[in-house]
């Protein structure tokens, strides 16, 4: 087939030169869509705006505040009937009334929203960005000019100082004589033969209800100060020094109690006389003394021939009394002698095994406060439960070899850095954010708040 020749002139001549003035479906569609689509968009905005302020939201709320998703003006307080994007601190303080961080010392205090950024999705608002902290702590300045803390802390990876308790010159303030090495030996003598103790036999988290595995807690005599001795060993620092919300959690180890952790094996050290099955109470010397007087008084009443009974040799502690012992002729002399022998055995031997005994104001000694810190991190928080997949010695690696009470067995920051990094989950590591351990607010000083909303006020528009 021969193709027909179409010259440019032929082609041009068949054109209608006014073609662009005629309507064309494509141009018509384009025109109408260009009108209709923007009108629909603006109409949608107007309709949404009329029903709620949510259309102006910059992002989804955090999980904790999601319930307020339809009631923007709970936080975006209306002032004179005008909705405001900026949330005032007063709106936050309606529910979270915590004091600011060192407000008396720092040169300025930021607003709540400066650190706790909302509308970023289901994040924990307490997980603030490090920059919130380093804006001050990268070069800390206080009103006095001399901050009591390290002046420059920029990150966890490189510029975080060693934990305060581990800095040079620091020692464990505890006064309880405890040899971790001896207690962790495989040949340790238990109540029914050798035992191999584990850290968790003594160091337990709150709410853990597991009985001691080697012997049931021994019934020790309890006296007037029973409640005190039951709650903790004498002098244990009960103040956790931090967030009261966490004291009942699994974060921290419970204080070691004589009754729960020690008595199973050490009750024999409070035995004072074979004539009694009962051991002396683990309590203040005055209480022990009163217990002994009561016991010997009862014994004398029940045994009229007690005056003529010989003193058992194991009750005499060499070097602590003049020998030979005088023969008692009256009930009072007998009582004084028996109580004196028991006092020496307990206060000069049994108690001293673990406690430091000090000279008292009267005839009785004083027990030095145990002063075991319940929390080593006074300005940071730690959650043992979150670290439960690790063995204790993975972090507390010096413990099995520690022989001295003064040894601080807290792991150093290097140990934490094995897993925690500033970049955190982005580099398959645990977070190294400041907020991971530090809390800006002192929640122990949290002021109670009163509810201000009804359910319809929060959920209107649902």
């Amino acid at each position, binding site marked *: *087939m*021969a*193709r*027909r020749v*179409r010259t440019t002139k032929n*082609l041009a001549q*068949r*054109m*209608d030169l006014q*073609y*662009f003035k*005629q309507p*064309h479906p*494509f141009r018509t*569609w*384009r025109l109408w*869509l*260009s009108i*209709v*689509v*923007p009108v*629909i*968009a*603006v109409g*949608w*905005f107007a309709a*949404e705006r009329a029903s709620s302020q*949510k*259309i*102006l*939201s*910059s*992002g*989804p709320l955090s999980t904790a505040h999601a319930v307020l998703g339809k009631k923007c003006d709970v936080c975006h307080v209306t002032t004179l009937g005008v*909705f*405001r*994007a*900026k949330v005032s601190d007063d709106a936050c303080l309606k529910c979270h009334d915590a004091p600011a961080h060192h407000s008396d010392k720092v040169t300025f205090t930021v607003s709540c*929203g*400066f*650190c706790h*950024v909302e*509308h*970023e999705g289901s994040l924990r608002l307490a997980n*603030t*960005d490090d*920059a*919130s902290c380093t*804006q001050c702590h990268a070069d800390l300045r206080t009103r006095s000019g001399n901050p009591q803390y390290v002046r420059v802390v920029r990150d966890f990876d490189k510029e975080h100082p060693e934990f305060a308790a581990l800095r040079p010159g620091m020692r464990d303030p505890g006064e309880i004589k405890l040899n971790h090495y001896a207690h962790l030996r495989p040949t340790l003598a238990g109540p029914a033969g050798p035992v191999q103790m584990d850290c968790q036999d003594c160091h337990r988290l709150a709410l853990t209800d597991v009985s001691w595995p080697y012997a049931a807690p021994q019934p020790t005599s309890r006296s007037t100060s029973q409640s005190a001795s039951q709650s903790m060993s004498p002098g244990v620092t009960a103040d956790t020094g931090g967030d009261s919300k966490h004291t009942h959690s699994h974060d921290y180890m419970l204080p070691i109690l004589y009754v729960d952790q020690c008595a199973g094996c050490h009750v024999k050290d409070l035995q004072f006389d074979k004539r009694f099955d009962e051991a002396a109470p683990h309590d203040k010397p005055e209480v022990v003394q009163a217990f002994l007087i009561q016991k010997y008084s009862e014994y004398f009443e029940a045994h009229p021939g007690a005056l003529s009974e010989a003193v058992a040799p194991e009750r005499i502690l060499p070097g602590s009394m003049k020998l030979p012992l005088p023969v008692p002729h009256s009930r009072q002399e007998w009582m004084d002698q028996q109580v004196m022998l028991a006092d020496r055995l307990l206060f000069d031997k049994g108690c001293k095994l673990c406690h430091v005994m000090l000279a008292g104001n009267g005839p009785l000694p004083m027990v030095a406060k145990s002063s075991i810190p319940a929390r080593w991190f006074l300005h940071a928080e730690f959650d043992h439960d979150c670290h439960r997949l690790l063995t204790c010695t993975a972090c507390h690696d010096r413990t099995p070899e520690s022989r001295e009470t003064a040894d601080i067995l807290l792991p150093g920051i290097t140990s934490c850095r094995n897993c925690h990094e500033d970049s955190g989950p982005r580099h398959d590591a645990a977070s190294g954010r400041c907020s991971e351990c530090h809390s800006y607010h002192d929640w122990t000083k949290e002021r109670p708040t009163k509810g201000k909303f009804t359910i319809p006020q929060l959920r209107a528009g649902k």
Partner: protein
Amino acid sequence: MRIDETHRKWFIGSLAALLVAAAIYVPYSRNTPQGANGGTAAGLTYGSIASALMLFAGLLGARKKVPIWRVGRAQAWMRGHLWLGFLSFPLILFHSGFHFGVGLTNALMWLFVVVLVSGIVGAILQHCMPRLTTQRIPLETIYEQIGSVRLQLVAEAEVVVEEASSALAGSVSQATEQQRAAAASAGTMGGLTVASGLQVDEGASAQLQEFFRREMQPYIAQGGANGKALADRNQSQAMFQQLRLLLPPTLHSAVDDLENICEEKRELDQQTQYHRILHAWLLVHIPASYALLLLGAVHAVMALRY
């Protein structure tokens, strides 16, 4: 518009601007406690620059409406529309801190994605399709003229058929000069013995007219294939070959003309398809762009007011 060497300066300029913006964004994002967002000074700056670029890109429509404006060449505007419009998207991401937000901001971001994607598709099509059209459609015409050209083709075909039919019906006076010249000779053409001179064949005339009326005219007069056999090049060739066998060689040139007209119609149909592909994205891009600019203005007012 083809994306060729003439775009190099725009490309390098846009890339440099993007790199500068990104270089500023990284430390800004890292050092902003609450993270990068539109409310900070830097965020507002990114948003303002991106809005200005979007507005400039949107002004291309106005520039086209008033071609006599002495505000730079249309091609420069087109290149600016392409590259600065493209640059505005990462700037908006820097503005928002790479968050899509909810509500109005979410709608704006998705509108922008629609505008960007449709724009990229359009740029690719505008780069590739014109060359393809030129290669495959030698007789390309103005798209809006296709309907008019189709009617002209129908008229041309009617004339050809009328002349051939007249010749077959014995009305030599109405035959073409070519047909009359052919009538003076005799011999063989294409392996077939042909008679000398025009021979009266009313049956063939009727068949030719029947073919034109039933097959060819409906096909040419309307756009698209409409299920007609002539829309298929192979079937069309077979049908016209049969027509040649039916008609004396002196009328084969008329058959060639008719076949050419059908071929031109097929090209017009193909041009229509190409045109739709080449311009359909505009039905998304332009309305979405207007909606984006309008809601963007609302967003700016709301953000600054509150």
